[in-house]
């Protein structure tokens, strides 16, 4: 038995420029289509679900500002993942580093907040959050650089440990982070000097612009600096890096710590912004995991992450409101994220290869 056709993969020597934007776009559409079929099959209304999602995610002023607000942390998680991906390091524990950023930020806001003015407190809180995120990735980074232990599973296991830590701080009676005098376990709100005011009547905070600037800055670092050059060499050929006298271990440490710090920073933006306290609800939101999808969809391009971050944010915002507007489970949002990434991965093949089916060579005489 032989198939009459063979699928041929021809490596493209030059990727047509239009495909770089086209493939992600088609992936999103294909995922929405697959989602539609799935919704129909499970007996939910497609038009109602999608129109509500789009309306609440993008096409209303409330929705759009909510989307930009949520995109702050998502873009942060995206650049965190992408920064490590640049060097073929798979930090998939951005989620857990985000928890630690939140713990660190909340601590700073509670302990230092009452003593410092806003102008010092806010940067200090964000930096302490970033440092906590970096600390959370230190062990995976160290063993990866020294022993070569795969960072994939170690960073992920630490996410589960981080979640337990968050729960511990909130559910333990008399915990420093727990709101006193309230029976229901919840976080204690940080000092006012540690909180930013939202822009107008929206749920957007100035941190959004900070994160966008950060993404652009990282883009510049990778393209134009010696550090970025080193990352590219080590990522592409470790032997060439050794040949050129580059210290791959140190660079591995640096890149992973920066990646962790970015995720921690993302967690801390939630303290100065929407949450204002350590909230165990964070462990149910999966922002860190979304960051991986955002980075992969943007193919680790920091500028493109801003776009894919906002797109995903809209899907989340719209998806989360489905609970109120329809009876469709809100998890359709997460599902679509996964589906978009799966389609984008498949689409990647079309970007890299010319794929065509050819008829099997018949015997000719």
């Amino acid at each position, binding site marked *: 038995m032989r198939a009459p056709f063979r*699928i*041929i*993969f021809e*490596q493209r020597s030059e990727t047509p420029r239009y495909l770089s934007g086209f493939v992600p776009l088609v992936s999103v559409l294909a995922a929405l289509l697959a989602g539609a079929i799935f919704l129909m099959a*499970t007996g939910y209304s497609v038009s109602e679900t999608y129109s509500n999602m789009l309306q609440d995610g993008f096409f209303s002023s409330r929705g759009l500002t909510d989307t930009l607000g949520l995109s702050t942390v998502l873009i942060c998680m995206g650049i965190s993942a992408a920064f490590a991906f640049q060097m073929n390091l*798979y930090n*998939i524990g951005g989620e857990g580093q985000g928890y630690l950023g939140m713990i660190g930020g909340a601590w700073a806001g509670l302990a230092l907040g009452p003593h410092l003015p806003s102008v010092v407190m806010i940067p200090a809180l964000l930096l302490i959050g970033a440092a906590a995120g970096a600390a959370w990735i230190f*062990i995976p980074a160290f*063993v990866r650089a020294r*022993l*070569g*232990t*795969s960072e*994939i*599973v*170690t960073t*992920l*296991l*630490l996410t*589960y*440990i981080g979640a*337990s*830590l968050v*729960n*511990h701080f909130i*559910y*333990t009676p008399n915990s420093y982070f727990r709101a006193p005098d309230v029976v229901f376990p919840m976080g204690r709100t940080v000092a006012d000097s540690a909180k930013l005011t939202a822009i107008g009547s929206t749920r957007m905070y100035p941190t959004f612009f900070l994160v966008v600037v950060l993404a652009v800055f990282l883009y510049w670092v990778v393209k134009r600096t010696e550090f970025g050059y080193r990352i590219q060499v080590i990522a592409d050929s470790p032997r060439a890096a050794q040949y050129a006298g580059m210290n791959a271990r140190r660079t591995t440490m640096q890149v992973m710590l920066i990646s962790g710090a970015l995720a921690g920073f993302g967690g801390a933006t939630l303290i100065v912004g929407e949450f204002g306290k350590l909230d165990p609800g964070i462990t149910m939101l*999966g922002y860190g*995991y*979304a960051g*991986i*999808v955002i980075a*992969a969809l943007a193919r680790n391009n920091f500028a493109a992450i801003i776009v894919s971050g906002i797109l995903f944010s809209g899907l989340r915002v719209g998806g989360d409101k489905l609970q109120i507007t329809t009876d469709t*489970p809100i*998890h*359709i*949002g*997460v*599902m*679509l*994220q*996964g*589906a978009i*990434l*799966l389609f984008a*991965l*498949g689409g*990647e*093949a079309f970007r*890299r*290869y010319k794929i065509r089916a050819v008829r099997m060579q018949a015997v000719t005489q």
Partner: protein
Amino acid sequence: MNENIWILTSANAVTIATTLILAALGALFTERSGVLNLGVEGILLTSAISSFLAADSTGSIWIGLVVGTVVGSLLSSIHATLTVILRANQIVSGLALVIFGTGLANFLGKPAEGRTVTTIIEPIRLGPLSDIPVIGPILFTQDIITFGTIAFAVACAWFLFRTRPGLELRATGDDPATVDAQGLSVSGIRIRYTMFGGALIGLGGSWHMLAQSAAWHQAATTNGIGWIALALVVFAGWHPVRLIFGAILFGFCLRLPFTLQAEQITFIPSAFMQMLPYLATLIALIALSRPGSKNLRGAPKALGNPFVRDER
């Protein structure tokens, strides 16, 4: 201290080890063919809820198990298509599967939230063996799936090292170019074992749901055991029999927090006890990668690399 509780913990460790063994065997077969499937956690969850819904609506646990197994295989066929045929990055594809699977499971599980199955798989008592004090209840009073799984793991070792398809499978994971030159289909072998591995993971997830978990509770149902299973494969040096011992050890770590709670041992905060299995896995992984460690030598050499013949 109540001795019975420790016996129960150990018995439960063997029970939970069954899920771990099945999931890890699935990952092992996949990896032995050279494909890394990080999507275990997503597959476990989706299979768990699918089997629950199937068992719930038909009233048959066995139908539930079959449905969960098929779902696991189908989900991993997505991974196989993307990574083997379309040559996508295996790591990203696996992660996408986790995210997709988690979303899908929670979506499907919404109507089932907090509910339990009414029938359970009855344990089998192995005659007088079950009456032996301590080890009787731990080792010889388990259900058929647990007994079957342990026997199956041993059979898998035989299959890997003593049969022709096992030889071809190991060769594919080590040196796909050689297998290709022998006229065997690398893609065919990889797709086959990725789907077979997914079926085992799916069975593990279904069994976890139907025989162990009290109720469907979103991602908390599997709570990261997919990742522990992946670490377990490394721990076992890609050998099915060593997997059994590792799984029981990790199973014990997973049950310990509940036991300590029941024993009202509170000097360790419960949150820290909940970290135990993840912490143990983390330490094991680091210890295994120290220089000269024997376990990593079992790693398939081509693990994670797409195979491309015509590239020039």
